[in-house]
């Protein structure tokens, strides 16, 4: 607005009302006068989590909600544009990276893809890096983007439908390169400056970056499963140098990424004898707790072809050293996505897909609380 006309208009109203506050402020009451300000977050609590919301029925208005599972309270929110998938949160937690897409007319017009930098303490926008407008859009999973272990390079999977990976130097905050990866999808960090992708024939492709973040080399493994017999889901989780994946049928595939090339171990089953009717299923269906060396898996009964995204009615927990199930956690409500907090007294957060998230004690399985009103379709949960 133009200051001049503002004065002309608002001036009239001020004349009407200014006397009141003026005289009111002259005397202080027993309730101290507030000084309105903008909140900051401070140190993260052990059970804080982000609920990423693609906002299904209004995709142009994607969000990421920050909640405290202990209080059930919303702590803050980020508005993250259309086709929103998930945040990337570096180890030091000082900043939040968010691959986002915008249209000049919200659902049409010129498309602009960016990586937005948010201050993790103030949740204010620090800046953005414009990247190629080909970011993959769909129901989010862990492979949509990732940070290399050295925390320097953010990788974003593109699908247009050409497959490629965008590399952003998040320290320099500049776009580095787009690496063409025909036949291979998604991104999984596997080392300081290394990541892998899953390819259509059941193999893995490892791409090593040079110090500038450009492709130094790529290597493809032999297929480690048969896509026609028992497809392995792309929804993996990582603990230290091992990525864990599960197949439709319920076998656990361990991929050791400590070396230059991924190493494969003998798959082992989630089900015991007579439990064949149970299958893994959901969107973010795997969770891991590094300290306890435990894997959590969403499971449902009457598994059948096509049920691999059915909500889980139980969470089964496995000792990764013994490769044995240590407990079953029946869920109060079926869930499609789960995450386990990192602390010593972890909670399991389970999203119903609808705007409801259940909080369970990860060790006892007790339901601690149910948080409602979490956006619209919170499909991917993250812990800072």
């Amino acid at each position, binding site marked *: 607005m133009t200051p001049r006309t503002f004065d002309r208009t608002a001036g009239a109203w001020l004349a009407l009302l200014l*006397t*009141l506050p003026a005289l009111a*402020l002259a005397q202080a009451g*027993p*309730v101290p*006068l507030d000084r309105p300000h*903008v*909140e900051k977050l401070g140190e993260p609590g052990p059970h804080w989590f982000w609920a990423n919301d693609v906002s299904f029925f209004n995709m142009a208005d994607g969000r990421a909600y920050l909640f405290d599972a202990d209080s059930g309270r919303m702590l*803050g929110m980020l508005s993250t544009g259309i086709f929103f998938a998930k945040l990337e949160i570096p180890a030091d937690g000082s900043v939040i990276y968010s691959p986002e897409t915008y249209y000049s007319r919200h659902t049409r017009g010129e498309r602009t893809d960016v990586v937005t930098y948010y201050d993790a303490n103030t949740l204010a926008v620090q800046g953005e890096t414009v990247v190629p407008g080909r970011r993959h859009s769909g129901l989010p999973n862990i492979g949509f983007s990732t940070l290399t272990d050295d925390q320097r390079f953010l990788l974003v999977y593109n699908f247009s439908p050409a497959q490629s990976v965008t590399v952003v130097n998040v320290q320099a905050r500049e776009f580095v390169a787009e690496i063409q990866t025909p036949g291979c999808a998604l991104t999984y960090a596997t080392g300081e400056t290394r990541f892998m992708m899953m390819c259509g024939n059941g193999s893995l492709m490892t791409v090593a970056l040079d110090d500038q973040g450009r492709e130094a080399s790529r290597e493809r493994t032999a297929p480690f499963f048969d896509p026609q017999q028992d497809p392995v889901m792309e929804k993996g989780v990582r603990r230290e140098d091992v990525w864990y994946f599960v197949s439709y049928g319920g076998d656990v595939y361990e991929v050791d990424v400590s070396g230059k090339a991924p190493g494969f171990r003998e798959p082992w089953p989630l089900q015991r004898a007579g439990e064949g009717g149970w299958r893994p299923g959901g969107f973010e269906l795997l969770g891991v707790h590094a300290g306890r060396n435990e894997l959590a898996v969403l499971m449902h009964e009457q598994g059948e072809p096509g049920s691999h995204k059915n909500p889980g009615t139980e969470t089964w927990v496995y000792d990764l050293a013994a490769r044995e199930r240590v407990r079953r956690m029946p869920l109060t409500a079926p869930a499609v996505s789960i995450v386990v907090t990192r602390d010593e007294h972890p909670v399991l957060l389970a999203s119903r897909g609808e705007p409801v998230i259940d909080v369970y004690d990860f060790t006892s399985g007790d339901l601690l609380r149910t948080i409602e009103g979490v956006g619209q379709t919170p499909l991917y949960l993250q812990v800072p």
Partner: protein
Amino acid sequence: MNWLNWLDRIGEHSARQVARTSSRRSFLARLGVLVAGGAASVPLLPVARGQESAAREPAPDEAGKRGPEYDPTSCEYWRHCAIDGFACACCGGSQSSCPPGTELAGMTWLGTCRNPDDGRDYIISYNDCCGKGSCGQCLCNRNEGDLPMWMPPKNNDTNWCQGVKSQSYHCTIAAVVGVATQES
């Protein structure tokens, strides 16, 4: 027009009726959402300052109190007698602070609410917090004192995210900025 009297009359009225009517959760209440409050464009008030401060300042004399009348996340909170929107205390803010990353709007709708603790009327400033999509939590709305759009300072169908970088409405606070005089 004696706006001082007018505002006070509405204020008193609201204060008296808050207990009876403010728990209404009709869709009308949801409509309140859009509305960043309503009246009194007062950009030079203290409410527009102090944005730098980040210290949380819960009103001390409410600390010990119990019940919805003293709960900033409740529509029955005594300061909410004229609120219209999402209560920021449910969005990562408080009754006197905006959620992280939002921008505090300097122009506010002023209400007059009675503090059940001391029975006195206080001037409440309903500043909006702006720059993100709607918070979606703790909707609360009442239309006492609301006038049509031909009187912007008293209209709560208006988005009061004004004088900020983005007019996108997120939530509304309820800050005490003074004590109302009884001279009406």
